[in-house]
């Protein structure tokens, strides 16, 4: 790389950073979603907390203020109000953005290892420990 390349790159990077910064809004977003039924509101809050904003680093829809999150939240809001079930809403999202959008991984065969792994580990750890104990136990009561 020669000098002008470096400079060009620097300018380009600088421009991109500027444009990105101009469009970023780091603050938490709050739009209002009115519910008459507190149960629906609770479901809405739970769903938006369990759905991941597809374009953010690692944020759920509730906390994110990207435009896409706002759109998706609006969709969740409408669907909750229209009486769709949680499962329907989650599968709507999954069809479009894949399992990536689900912060709560589905309990199914392909995720069996994920869900069972820690429990198997815990059980094995306890079993091995107790077996080791009973095998190596030496009685030297005084």
């Amino acid at each position: 790389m020669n000098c002008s390349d470096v400079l060009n790159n620097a300018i380009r990077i600088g421009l991109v950073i500027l444009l990105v910064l101009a469009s970023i809004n780091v603050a938490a977003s709050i739009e209002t979603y009115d519910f008459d039924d507190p149960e629906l509101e609770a479901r809405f809050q739970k769903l938006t907390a369990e759905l991941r904003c597809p374009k953010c680093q690692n944020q759920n829809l509730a906390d994110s203020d990207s435009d896409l999150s706002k759109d998706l939240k609006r969709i969740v809001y409408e669907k909750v109000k229209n009486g769709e079930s949680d499962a329907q809403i989650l599968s709507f999202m999954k069809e479009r953005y894949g399992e990536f959008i689900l912060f709560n991984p589905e309990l199914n065969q392909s995720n069996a290892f994920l869900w069972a792994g820690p429990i198997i580990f815990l059980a094995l750890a306890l079993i091995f420990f107790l077996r080791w104990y009973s095998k190596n136990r030496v009685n030297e009561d005084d």
Partner: protein
Amino acid sequence: MHAEFGNYLLVLAFIVSVSLSILPMYGSFTGNQFLTRTAKPLTVIFFVALLASFICLVYAFYIDDFTIRYVAQHSNSLLPNRYKFSAVWGAHEGSFLLWVLIMSGWMIAVALVGKNLPALSYSRILSVLGMIACGFISFLLFTSNPFERTLPFFPIDGSDLNPLLQDFGLIIHPPLLYMGYVGFAVSFAFAVTGLIEGEWTSTWARWTRPWTIAAWSCLTLGIMLGSWWAYYELGWGGWWFWDPSENASFLPWLSGTALMHSLAVTDKRNSFKGWTLALSLSTFSLSLLGTFLIRSGVLTSVHSFTNDPERGRFILMFLAIVVGSALLLFLTRSGRVKTKVDFNILSKDMFLLLNNVLFVSATFIVLFGTLYPLIAEVFGKKMSVGAPYFNAIFPIPMVILFALLGVGPLLNWKKHNLSKLKKPLLSIAVIAVALSLLSTWLMGDFYLWVLVGLSLSLWVAISSFYHLNLMTRYKKTLAGKLKSLTLTNIGMTSAHIGVVITLAGIVLTSFYSIEKDLRMAVGESKELAGYTFNMAEVKDLRKENYQATQVTFEVFQNGEKLFELKPEKRFYLAGRQIMTEADIDAGFTRDLYVALGESLDSTGKVWSVRIYVKSFMRWVWLGALFMGFGGFIAMFDKRYRKLRSKNASKIVAEA
């Protein structure tokens, strides 16, 4: 000038660390007294060089030297001075310089305090620490040099520190957190030296204990501050997201907690040496792994550093060398350390070991959940593992752990006769459950998890006080009772009470907090959980480096005005970023939290507003304070001091 000087000092520190990794170690094996004794002076030079280098960077921020790339990218002439200071560690390069500085701080502490260690071990420990420091500093010099210049085309002004980080929390959170992360390097170095010498005895455990406790306490407080910062600064009212960066700090914490308990067994009973060694090695390895995960961008995290594969590969190679050699050393050397199993099921030994099994399982759960998306990616699947997963799995080992914690401290080493304990334990359990039932009834809604969490909290808390009482039963006065307790006992009780305060806080705030997104106009009032929030006034502010719109909410309860909350929407001038600044009234039983959304009409008098009533929020961090301070008390126990004042080599002979 200062930039070059700072850079030279880094190079000097690098050379010193290389010498420190080689000379004393070589000397200790060849019997060269002179080389062996270089450990201390080299450590001192290393520390001084880094400190001076760090001051150079601070100075560069102070005078707004935008010819330095790092300063230009993370500061601004409008930035208030206190934030110019904390901006030094506001991003990758500077924070890593701080990291290395803290590493050298631990090293000099070992060099000064550990004078009474056997001369050879002393030099070897410092030498091992030197090797680790050498890796860190070469990472800094070769991939992340904070003193790099932007010459010849330097900007007139800097692009500013991320507004999220312009905050008191950032001034203290990273230093404490890093003290925890890096502090485990000390127990790592002790373990490695012990393995090299092949003679890891209970004396070694006693030497390691205060260092481990110190690092653990710093990490505890560091994590707590991070959680608190996220809560008030991000405006989401959340305090733990199970984000990879949080998990990265939680992993060494969990493993370090296991280590502290295992060290107690090895110290008191001279057993489980292999296990304790393994934990010493893995705790610091997890610190390194966390560093790698966060700084390489392998995992996407809310607060990730800029992703640079070069850096990631460098840390990975460093990690592979450090962890790999520790692993090899452990596999080939630890076989000599044999353990005698001579305790009953009902004994302190057993309960401490179960604590270890459970903490290791908890560590595994967090590690597994954090890395699972990467595992899935290797198999071509893109997925997320988030808070709901951890919230479902993590409590499993924790419930068992807290149940055992109510009994463990009461037991004797080796064996215990249950008959004396049966009655008091049963009454404690009954009282705990009864009180929890009463409190859930008082709180209104019933949740099983709240009942379980509160019962466990009370179970441990009452049992802790019972334990204190039992230990001091022969003393009549309170002063006498207090005097008869060792610092270890006070520290331990404080930490145990702390962890259940946190537990109670977690369950209560998770289940009884209320959140509302509202549309409000000036003059309008809304009621939430018995509080009336009246939107009184909208006002524009102009501060040093931002403009803000401030909305005043008057909070009433039973018609009486309690106080005002003034959340802001800020516009930071240099970075052109918009930020929400929540306002919080913190209370012992609840926090009132108001954050502004967006202005909903052109007059600026109508806003979307998010209001939280967070039950028992403070308890989560209050408990962590108890834990951290408990640690700081325990590390000053006479038990460790005695050891130092005696002739150390004599102790080795005794053991």
